[in-house]
């Protein structure tokens, strides 16, 4: 599966540059030039199945205490669970959603903020962050479809995200980490060669991301920065 996605990424990038037809129709998204101006979970799930995502499913997340639930598309690539939440819905146009939030999470094994800062520089489309309270590291990317993008670009954006997550996981595998051992003593800095352990995002992690975007649509103009 992973190889398929990696190959698809290369293919997509080359296609985007050279406008050449994909050599393997199995990896080609249908209706590639169709313009998407608002997004649904079914749209994302359909594209994922076409480009080779495994175990694609749609679920409702949240909805407790009278709050609206959110559609989340889950899939698997190379043993890594990915989640895509449909967001910025209803806020502007009833029945339409203008963005989707991609999130992959892994257990925080004591990765330093410096490590995450370095990875935020090194990666192209990812935003990495730690959630100290919940002890996880998130690898996120919010995509906007507002204004219109093609289905092919959606497929490329998802594929690129997946490829970059795999690459970031490789880099995190060989990080120096510190931590607290079971007896409460601080462990010395050591090279942690164990693979990062992915975890499936819970509702809180999903809604934290999507709420950030939803809240922005409500905010009033802010004070401008001084400029040189």
């Amino acid at each position: 599966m992973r190889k398929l996605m990696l190959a698809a990424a290369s293919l997509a990038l080359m296609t985007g540059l050279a406008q050449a037809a994909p050599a393997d129709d199995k990896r080609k998204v249908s209706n590639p030039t169709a313009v998407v101006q608002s997004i649904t979970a079914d749209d994302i799930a359909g594209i994922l199945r076409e480009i080779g995502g495994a175990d694609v499913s749609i679920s409702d997340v949240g909805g407790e205490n009278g709050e609206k639930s959110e559609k989340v598309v889950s899939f698997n690539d190379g043993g890594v669970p990915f989640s895509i939440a449909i967001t910025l819905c209803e806020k502007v146009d009833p029945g339409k959603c203008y963005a989707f939030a991609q999130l992959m999470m892994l257990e925080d094994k004591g990765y330093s903020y410096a490590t995450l800062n370095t990875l935020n520089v090194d990666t192209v489309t990812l935003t990495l962050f730690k959630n100290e309270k919940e002890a996880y590291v998130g690898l996120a990317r919010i995509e906007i479809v507002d204004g219109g993008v093609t289905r092919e670009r959606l497929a490329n954006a998802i594929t690129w995200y997946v490829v970059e997550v795999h690459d970031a996981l490789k880099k995190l595998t060989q990080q120096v980490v510190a931590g607290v051992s079971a007896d409460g003593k601080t462990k010395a800095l050591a090279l942690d060669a164990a693979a990062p352990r992915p975890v499936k995002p819970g509702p809180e992690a999903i809604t934290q991301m999507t709420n950030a975007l939803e809240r922005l649509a409500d905010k009033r103009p802010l004070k401008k920065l001084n400029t040189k």
Partner: protein
Amino acid sequence: MRFLTAVAALALASAIAPSAMAANVASFTAENVKAMVTEGGGSNVTSQTAEGLTFVNFDLNGLPFTYSLQLCDPKGKAGCAGILMAIGVALDQSYSLDTLNSFNRDIPLVTVVQIDAKTIAFGRFAVAMGGMSAENFKANMQMVAVGPELFVRHLKGQVVATTGTAGQAVPVSATPEAAPKAIRLSPQAMSRLIDEETLKKLNVK
């Protein structure tokens, strides 16, 4: 477009004129980026070549942005598949990486990174491959445009506990005394914001 309008209300006074919804931007060139940036409210729009890359510089609501074209066709015919949109902020005081992390955690629309102790940068990468509309480009543009102001607002919401004279916990705002200053990132700084090895692994460059 409507989401764009809503988000633009965060920080931008200039309205963006709606245009045709064709997703006809299949690659980036200095020319089409300059045109879209201008349509998006940018002023003093110029382009330059340095460090082997093409940069588009402009001001938007008084803030100096720099975009660098990435994943370019070596022959120069097919344009570039990606663009790094960025702005720098010079700090009078350094912020902990913990603070930057909390921004990335809460507002991952744009990524903030520390370049050095006195400089941070906000960046977002957009890809054209497959096709996007000019309106979508401008929606991505707005995500970066609001980054510095969102960061200031985020700082104001950051509180840390300290101990008062009577021993009670006192919330202390992390808001800086002076507002950070937005700066235009140099080509060298822009080059540091993206990793060549990562691009190579994507089999493009």
